[in-house]
């Protein structure tokens, strides 16, 4: 019946949908395998015990209460930027300008703190900061959307380039605001703490975390249950279908990008007003790009994005901790992060396809990459 030697060694075929527990089992297996490979790499390259490294990674996030709050804060901001880019991605508008939009939001926040710091009551100031950051970032995002809607320009390049413009703008204002000539803006309003977000329940980052939690539910609801969310997914799947049913594609592109930018503005606001109380060209810290990965890994589902942004924040904190504890280069942590992401992304292949081998033809392929 089966002519071995005649059939190829293996062939790949598409799977029908796997039950959720099997696909999660595959993902889990991928993480376990990734950890084993990481352990091998660690021992071979550094001679350090892999178990010690793993313990350190965990320690980096959960070692102390303080570290845990830092993890939550990192997670919240990353999640916020990811939530921001997701509506655009669902519309197949590849907004990789999250970095710049966050910076512009942060810049507007810092400007309000800097210029109005002593001139109005704190509550009013914070309100002005909120409006300014959201409006500024929304406008920043609307520019490439306008060009896309009007002349179908390439949004990937456009949004990417806008990042550099944003960085230079921030750099310019840093020089304007810095009185010492070093180009670094120190903590803004250190004595009056004007425009600093209030600390609630004695926890510095709790407010940020709560705001992002609310945003997560809101974005999920917007995408899933509203007419706008429906329209933007139709536009994303097929512009022709959208036009066929009378959806104004240009309007949807513009509206969605304004929303995307506004949420990035919130991230900038939380970073400057709620966490750093200063601004620099690295305020966004590459989150605009990491957010792309968070969003994709979660398949644009805001609830799953909590998990993926946790994973990335956790790995990033762990990397810093390794660098610190073992005297290793910070790049080593990035190598481990890279390996883990490779396995996680690779596992999607085994969820979507199965590999049949020549001899034991009918059983499913195993899940190693």
């Amino acid at each position, binding site marked *: *019946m*089966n*002519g071995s030697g*005649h*059939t*190829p060694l293996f*062939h790949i*075929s*598409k*799977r*029908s*949908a796997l039950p959720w527990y099997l696909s999660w089992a595959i993902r889990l297996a991928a993480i376990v395998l990734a950890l084993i490979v990481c352990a091998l790499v660690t021992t071979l390259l550094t001679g350090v015990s892999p178990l010690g490294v793993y313990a350190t990674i965990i320690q980096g996030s959960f070692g102390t209460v303080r570290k845990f709050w830092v993890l939550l804060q990192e997670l919240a901001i990353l999640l916020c930027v990811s939530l921001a880019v997701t509506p655009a991605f669902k519309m197949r508008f590849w907004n990789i300008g999250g970095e710049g939009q966050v910076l512009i939001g942060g810049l507007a926040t810092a400007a309000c703190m800097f210029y109005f710091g002593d001139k109005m009551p704190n509550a009013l100031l914070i309100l002005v900061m909120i409006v300014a950051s959201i409006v500024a970032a929304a406008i920043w995002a609307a520019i490439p959307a306008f060009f896309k809607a009007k002349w179908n320009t390439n949004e990937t390049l456009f949004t990417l380039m806008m990042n550099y413009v944003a960085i230079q703008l921030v750099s310019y204002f840093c020089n304007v605001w810095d009185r010492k000539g070093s180009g670094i803006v120190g903590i803004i309003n250190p004595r009056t703490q004007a425009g600093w977000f209030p600390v609630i329940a004695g926890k510095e980052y709790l407010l940020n975390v709560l705001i992002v939690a609310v945003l997560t539910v809101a974005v999920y609801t917007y995408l899933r*249950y*509203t*007419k*706008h*969310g*429906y*329209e933007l*997914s*139709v536009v994303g*799947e*097929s512009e*022709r*279908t959208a*036009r*066929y*049913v*009378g959806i*104004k594609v240009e309007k949807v592109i513009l509206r969605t990008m304004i929303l995307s930018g506004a949420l990035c503005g919130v991230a900038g606001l939380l970073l400057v007003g709620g966490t750093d109380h200063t601004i620099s060209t690295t305020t966004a810290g590459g989150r605009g790009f990491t957010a792309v990965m968070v969003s994709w890994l979660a398949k644009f589902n805001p609830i799953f994005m909590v998990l993926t942004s946790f994973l990335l924040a956790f790995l990033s904190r762990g990397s810093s901790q390794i660098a610190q504890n073992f005297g290793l280069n910070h790049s080593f942590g990035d190598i481990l992060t890279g390996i883990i992401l490779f396995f996680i992304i690779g596992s999607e292949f085994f969820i979507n396809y199965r590999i*049949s081998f020549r001899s034991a*033809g009918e059983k499913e392929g195993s899940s190693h990459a």
Partner: protein
Amino acid sequence: MEESKAAVQLRNITKSFGTVLANDRVWLDIYRGEILALLGENGSGKTTLMNMLSGIYFPDEGQIYVDGKEVVIRSPKDAFDLGIGMIHQHFKLVDVFTAAENIVLGLRGHGKLDLKAVGRKVKEICDTYGFEVDPQQKVYDMSVSQKQQVEIVKVLYRGADILILDEPTAVLTPQETDKLFAVLRNMRDSGKAIVIITHKMHEVEELSDRVAILRHGQFMGDMLTKDTNAQDMTNMMVGHSVTLNINRPEPEDPKPRIEVKGLTVRSIDGILKLEDVSFVARSGEILGIAGISGSGQKELLESIAGLQTVEKGSISYIGDDGSREELVGKDPLAIADLGVSLSFVPEDRLGMGLVGSMDLTDNMALRSYRRGKGPFLDRSFPRHRAEWVVSELAVSTPGVATQVRKLSGGNVQKILVGREIASAPKVLLTAYAVRGLDIGASYTIYDMINLQKEKGVAVIYVGEDLDVLLELSDRILVLCGGKVSGIVDGRSTNKREVGMMMTRLGGGTSE
């Protein structure tokens, strides 16, 4: 059994895609000097089976023998090496290359490319079998039928003597079809094995020597064409008996509903697509639109539906009370806001009419999602509508939460047509409503369209199968190069007359 003579023997071929068993232990013999028609409904696994022979898919199980020797076909190249060539439904030619360049494309030659020699060899092949291919002509200058000939010559050039054609007549006019059939007969007479995949019964009868029938991925049997008839073949193919007559009720009280006057449309590149087109579509009547593909059918329907920029002319919607609404310059939303209930079944089902990755409910919502105030989407209305379409049109689907792209072509079309008629339209525009559908599904669609006609809907039916157009339409408007070649009565005209009008304005006098 004359096993020794068979050019190709397929034994126990099984192929599944996910949970769908596309081919289930299929046996099939293909002989030289014979035209085999591979007949089956859509989704019965004809194309899948032939794709395994031509190296596009690899079977899960089973063996393939060529000239009695077991072979493994891993890639189209393996298939070519065995002399097997397939001509697909969608041509794979480079537009800016000449016929000769396309023919040698991908072939590994020795030394310099000698296009003159290629041209000579192409000429030779053409002369042998009666093709009309100019090796120097660029593909973008060619008609569909010429492109198809290039595809066939390309396969012959590579030395194929087992040829598989996947629904070759779907894009041809009757005259072109006759030419193709003559060429295929010549090839058969010179000893080649020919397989045509089809679901058109009259083609099987006219052309093939033997017919093999697939149903639900299983081989139902084969027989000499002369020993069988259309009714028997259909029954084998469908699994139960089907009547092969299209109903044509007399129109009841037809009144003008859509009046098109002097419609002129240009494409974005400035090419004239429609020129001075005028006609009236009446309520309770099916107006068939015939024409070679690309004669302006798409632009005509899209103009009425508000999806096309119109250069000149007017399109009026005439209400029951005689009131007129101008549709030119309005988008689909503005047209709907006028209270004009117009439904459009576009040619491109999954690219325009439906969203493949969305489920049935969300696809129904495409037309109704604006209902209700407030920002939230009402999903219960479209879900009920999806359930209604599924039960009313006997759509086979696991449920209304299934992605549309997972359904077969016939079911996809039922969903689309079902959604469009569910809103009780006054005007129904359909483009190639039965393209790619099997007999059973096609007749369901004809019945649905006739039902709309009886309800007083003005139906504009763009079709490609002249036999069907002639049986279904009350009147037929024939387009030729974007102009109206004539409007004829569906009951008194014939295929020949319409065919002539398709190729020449007014039909001309060819005698």
